[in-house]
């Protein structure tokens, strides 16, 4: 099963290497990892999507906890959460197909961000199901280049992940 982990880490140099190294040497499979700083400049947040059964997940979480730079880990999979990923896709596009591709983009609420002589670049956000579907819809036109950010996620409602744990708002 796929799990989504929200991991708060010290914003120290090398922390990404520590986390990534841990996953590879312990044989854990990362589906995606997205990292950036949070509302606090000294704290970064990683959203890690990892494949594994409950036992694997327990080990992932415990081993992550052993890293001194890791402050908090929440497996938000069982919670209600919003998740998003952003993709940029550059599609082969002759002038005659522009309208058609723009219609596809419209269906997925994607935005055209660049036009070239024979290309069109679109931006789309959503969960990975939507992104995958969008990619498939564009594939027949010829995808020249594609880049995805990896998933970021946040719990819905008043619950939140903070340095002091997963809590309800006071």
């Amino acid at each position, binding site marked *: 099963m796929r799990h989504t982990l929200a991991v708060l880490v010290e914003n120290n140099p*090398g922390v990404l290497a*520590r986390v990534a190294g841990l996953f590879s040497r312990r044989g854990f499979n990362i589906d995606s990892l997205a990292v950036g700083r949070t509302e606090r400049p000294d704290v970064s947040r990683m959203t890690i999507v990892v494949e594994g059964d409950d036992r694997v997940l327990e*080990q992932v979480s415990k081993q992550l906890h052993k890293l001194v730079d890791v402050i908090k880990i929440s497996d938000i999979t069982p919670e209600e959460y919003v998740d998003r990923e952003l993709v940029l896709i550059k599609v082969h596009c002759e002038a005659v197909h522009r309208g058609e591709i723009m219609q596809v983009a419209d269906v997925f609420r994607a935005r055209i961000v660049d036009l070239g002589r024979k290309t069109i670049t679109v931006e789309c956000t959503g969960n990975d199901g939507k992104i995958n579907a969008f990619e498939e819809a564009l594939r027949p036109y010829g995808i020249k280049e594609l880049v995805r950010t990896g998933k970021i996620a946040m719990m819905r409602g008043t619950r939140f992940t903070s340095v002091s744990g997963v809590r309800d708002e006071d």
Partner: protein
Amino acid sequence: MEMTVAQALIRCLELEEVDIIFGYPGGAILPVYDALCKAASIKHVLVRHEQGAVHAADAYSRATGKVGVIMATSGPGATNLVTGIANAYMDSVPLVLITGQVPTSQVGTDAFQEVDITGITMPITKHNYLVKDAKKLPSIIKSAFHIASTGRPGPVLIDLPKDVASETIKFTYPEKVSLRGYKPTYTGHPAKVKEAAKLMMNSQRPVIYAGGGVLNSGAAGELLQLAETLTAPVTNTFMGLSGFPGEHPLFLGMLGLHGTRYANLAVTNCDLLIALGARFDDRVTGRLAAFAPNAGVVHVDIDPAEIGKNVQVHVPIVGDVKQVLQAILAHLKKKDRTGWLEQIQQWKKEYPLTYGSGGEKMKPQAVIEAIYRHTRGEAVVTTDVGQHQMWVAQYYRFKYPGTLISSGGLGTMGFGLPAAVGAQIGLPDRLVMLITGDGSVQMNIQELATLVEQKLPIKIFIMNNNCLGLVRQLQEFYCERRYIATEFGFVPDFARLAGAYGIAGYDIETLEQLDKMLPEIISNPGAAIVNCRVDASENVSPMVMAGQGIDEAIDC
């Protein structure tokens, strides 16, 4: 007070009450050594190879309970530490290592003697630091000692670029450490403690399986009390040896791959396995499905990641073994037990540790027994890795906690000699012995010079069989006796080598000779090398073959 970072570093070490540093100088760490000149309270032990420095500090730490401190320079100085660091990491030994680094402006340029030692040691340190901001040095040192010595202990490395070491800072040493991502748990969860106590009281056939965590937490007294209260037999992992008195009637010896048959049978047939500060290592469990198949498992460990890693646990307790045992003992009443103990007694009678008596050559097992006869467990024993190490585990009865210092998890040949150096420096008044092999001792034999320079009266017993016995044994059983690269075409004359270092050398061919010479060897005030020519055909027995359960050991 204003001072250079190098001076501040030495000041920090003084405030951490470091009295000894094992190290080897070089260009990048020059400013730190220069500052060390003025530190009257810190002694520096100059080793002959950086690996020796780590092993010596490792053993010093195990012998004294203090944090071992190591210094080395950048590049090769740092990479030579790597095996020692991995060794300490696997055996949970608190170390603080300080390496010099090329100046910040050259970091990342493949400069002379530059190596990314924080990157290299990431998987084998508990934590490491590259000091970029001079002001942070004091708090980094404070944190390093805290991280190394608390929770599950381990090595922490600090890489200090040469230019940073020469910067001037205003020195204040923080009183407290604040690490929001690091808060080890010491006290067991009360509900789990109760549950464990209940299982222990209700168990008919309990076995206590005690590891190195018992020694790390100083819980040997509590372990003894637990065993005697429950009248439960105790088996030790290799790392746990010396944590329970070797002559105690409840002692089963070591379990696992080369464990006693009765320990392995007891574990296989128990209804409750009480795992204390042990990690269900593959050398202990053999085939996992056959390990304690009908037992409930109580697992006490300070490292939550060890609980449930290899086996399913019924009562997990995260905490310090000593504190958790104290809490459990409060819930226990003295329990007598006859049937289970009789069964174990029968196994002990039926399957004792044995070795052949034939042949002209001295049996290595008999050498260990002789050393035990003459020391009665009063010595601190360091070993290397190989057959001799397993024979020590089987035939030497440890009396006091911490009197075995050996490389368990990593199995580092070459650990023994520098470890003996570190142990003797930490325990100047104790009899320190190294039991090693002709293969292992040659792996760090340069440390003989350190031993002599430091005037250490270490007694070195070399189980000399002219080969790499344990690997040879593997070739006998797994490669149909196709021996390759395990027999030495040349082995130095160790007794004469002793002469070259100005210490006593002995050549021993027979057990009678050994018995006669041992009192002299032990009582002499100086160091000695005792070259014991032993029967090369002896194997470590019993042995559990790969993929087998621990109750399926073969005699070999």
